[in-house]
């Protein structure tokens, strides 16, 4: 080509462990042991390519979940097992970006089992998000629109020509493709609802079944949407929304916000919009460009979504799920999978408050619960019999987590804490058990510190 339109900026600074960790946390669920080193050695370009398209088939590695009662996961049936099933994939996948994008789409097209009432339908929708994780957004929207969980959640199965229901017609524009504001009118909402009529379902022993399009329930008349008219149906709804001239702007800004907490600059926004349209409305190329962007590595830190923080703590040590407690702990942290708070998804600006912070402390503790040292156990005490310098204790705790990058300010507090434990151990009998407890506390402090809550 004679002239490429202004190329998107690419990060050219140092790409070391800190940058590789950020990439792994924001585009996935944090590094597995040694993974940050490996990515840092690759350099930015290859590292991003590796995230986008990991070698080999996606699979799960590491220990499979072992629950307290030793029963296998039954994600369709048992309460909480839906959550554990997906959480396990986050912990063990070799394709973290695919899993992270599955989470992004779950948030984007936020559907809650609170309204669907079927783990089976929720997991079917989840498979759809995973399959189209970095693919065509139009295909994704088309599939989501007649996905059974969506139909139930946003009243699509109750939207008939005689009794139109505007629920999905509104949300598809406001939350999924265009954003609130002047991009559409109330008239468009009503006409979209008409176009979307026709989906229905039957009932069986298992509840909902046989979701299908019934032409008799569809309003076959002419509709006028975005100043165009025709005998539109649900496919047209999707097509009209994605082809709306304000859609790329909404899409790029929303996608950007999942990876970078600062607003996208005007120049980058235009570049990304062009890239998106040129690719035929694919998310993959836009994601790749965002992951290469300077703002990804130069800007401020982001608060990790709680499920990312929790899954990452297990990934960092290459351990698996050892308790069903993750379901309620995640609930307390504010991110129970399959239960977003409403159709707008989770609020990424409001993850932390006094309630959810305590829950993250519980998560930090739970993530290594089976390995907590026992200060009453003789062999453990024997290992801590000799004096251990405070900074050595901190170093050991950092090594336990695979030496994540922790800022100086926090390290100082950890060192102060380690020193204070030494001075509190003012009797001989205290010395070894206090060293054991100090190590316990240090490990959880690292897992819950502000540096580890953010990336």
């Amino acid at each position, binding site marked *: 080509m004679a002239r490429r339109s202004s190329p998107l900026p690419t990060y050219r600074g140092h790409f070391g462990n800190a940058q590789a960790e950020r990439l792994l946390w924001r585009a996935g669920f944090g590094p597995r042991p040694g993974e940050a080193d490996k990515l840092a050695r690759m350099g930015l370009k290859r590292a991003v390519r590796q995230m986008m398209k990991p070698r080999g088939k996606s699979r799960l590695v590491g220990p499979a979940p072992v629950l307290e009662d030793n029963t296998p996961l039954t994600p369709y049936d048992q309460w909480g097992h839906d959550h554990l099933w997906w959480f396990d994939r986050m912990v063990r996948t070799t394709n973290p970006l695919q899993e992270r994008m599955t989470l992004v789409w779950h948030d984007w097209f936020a559907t809650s089992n609170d*309204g669907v009432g079927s783990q089976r339908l929720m997991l079917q929708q989840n498979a759809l998000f995973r399959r189209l994780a970095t693919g065509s957004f139009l295909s994704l929207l088309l599939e989501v629109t007649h996905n059974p969980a969506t139909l139930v959640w946003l009243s699509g199965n109750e939207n008939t020509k005689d009794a139109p229901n505007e629920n999905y017609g509104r949300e598809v524009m406001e939350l999924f493709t265009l954003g609130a504001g002047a991009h559409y009118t109330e008239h468009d909402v009503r006409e979209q609802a008409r176009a979307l009529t026709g989906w229905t379902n039957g009932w069986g022993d298992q509840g909902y079944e046989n979701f299908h399009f019934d032409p008799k329930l569809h309003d076959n008349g002419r509709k006028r949407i975005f100043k165009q008219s025709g005998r539109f149906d649900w496919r047209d709804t999707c097509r009209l929304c994605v082809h709306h001239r304000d859609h790329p702007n909404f899409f790029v800004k929303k996608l950007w916000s999942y990876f970078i907490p600062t607003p996208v600059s005007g120049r980058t926004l235009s570049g990304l919009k062009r890239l998106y349209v040129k690719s035929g409305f694919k998310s993959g190329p836009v994601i790749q460009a965002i992951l290469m962007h300077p703002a990804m590595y130069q800007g401020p830190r982001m608060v990790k979504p709680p499920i990312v923080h929790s899954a990452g703590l297990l990934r960092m040590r290459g351990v698996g799920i050892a308790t069903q407690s993750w379901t309620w702990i995640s609930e307390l942290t504010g991110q129970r999978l399959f239960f977003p708070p409403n159709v707008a998804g989770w609020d990424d600006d409001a993850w932390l408050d*006094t*309630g959810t912070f*305590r829950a993250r402390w519980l998560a930090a503790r739970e993530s290594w619960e089976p390995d907590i040292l026992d200060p009453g156990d003789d062999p453990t005490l024997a290992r801590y019999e000799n004096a251990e310098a405070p900074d050595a204790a901190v170093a050991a705790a950092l090594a336990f987590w695979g030496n994540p990058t922790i*800022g100086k300010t926090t390290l100082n507090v950890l060192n102060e804490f380690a020193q204070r434990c030494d001075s*509190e151990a003012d009797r001989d009998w205290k010395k070894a058990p206090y060293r054991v407890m100090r190590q316990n506390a240090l490990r959880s402090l690292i897992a*819950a510190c502000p540096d580890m809550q953010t990336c």
Partner: protein
Amino acid sequence: MSEQIHTRACREFTRAQVLREAAARAGNGLPLIEPGMPLPAGSGLSRRSFLLRGGAFMLTLYGALNYNPLRLSDAIAQAAAGPPDPVLVSVFLDGGADSLSVLAPVEDATYRRLRPTLALSPDIGTPFGDDTRLRWNPAADGLRILHEEGKLAVAPSIGYTPADQSHFTSRHYWEVGDTDPRLQTGWLGRYLDAVGAPDNPLQGLSVDYSLSPALAPSKVPVAALANPRSYRFGHRNVWGEVDEAMIDAIERMGQASQGSRDNGLRTAADASAQSMKLRRQLLPFATEEDNAPPGIASPVTYPKDEDFGEQLQFVAAMLAIGLPLRCVAIRAAGGYDTHDQQRESFDKDLKSAADCLLAFQRDLEARGLADRVLVHIWSEFGRRPEENGSNGCDHGAAGMAMVMGSRVRRQLLGEFTGVDVLDEDDNMRPSMDFRALHGAILDQWFNFDAARVIPKVRSYNLPAILN
């Protein structure tokens, strides 16, 4: 968000709820300290003095709880040093409570016709002194007693026009104190923004797992807490002095990065420091029940096995030991979205709520706190006078609100508009706008210009609610 609304009733997940949620989260990450707030650097919490303070705190608090709550921390000391603030407890009947089944026009022929299965029998219940057309549902006996003692005023037909029949929209209006779907701060949140402290999360307390949108501020910190007893940060196999040092380290890790220029890091640091501060404020609750310090145990008996009663009891206890609460939000016992089989749940729920509220008033009286507390009881709307085909009632318009407390003036707030003349959707018409009652609470209870919180509040007739 109550389970009730999602499962038993309508799944009305509309954009209005999105806004409601947004309102709940206004203030950018509640209940964090707002960016730009100065570090507590000048507050003298260097490590050494902090430790001393920490130690002193434990000792004085447990030793002389009733006499000297001022040692809790500087912020609390400051808050407690002035005259005690008036406290509002907002009690929400979630789902749209059927006002016609609390105070029923039992003799009214229209009522009996509209409610063939749900009408209250004219043979039971006590007449309502303020309007003898109405009789108390016996399940509401706790409220009746308070009313007869002159400690409860009832607005029997309160709402707004045009009425919105969405749970979320209507609830949002009540919470933000206006019929504005875009408003993102709660009416109590805005009040706290004006009078609250920059470092006291307890001034606005949701006794719940998440923050009540009515409390959502834009500036000052507020807190959500389901159970003050469970707000602990212990760790298996970490105890004694190491445990104390670990707890301090969590707070120090937060404080150390609160001055960071990195917005993300600072957000996490704020949460860490703020949480540990709340933990200290709640320490008196963290002990086992037997050796709970004086002031925690209630002098009266609450209904058994009732979260709502336990939560009210916590509020009374927190006030008794001098914790600086100003606005408290709690959801009442029960779920009131009674689309079907109303009889089966409503009386039971109403009784639980009313009994707990009576116990709370008695508790406050026994502790000598009754003059400091006003309770505002409300629901997002009433229900349709005509029952539906499933022995329930659908969403209505005007409903009921009440104010309860020792200083409340006994009188009818507005009037009962009756079931003979309804609005165009066949729902009850309001005789008082909900903003008039909000405004009266701000003006008279808080002695604060309501117009600073509620737009156009002066266009309503504010009732005199206090003696």
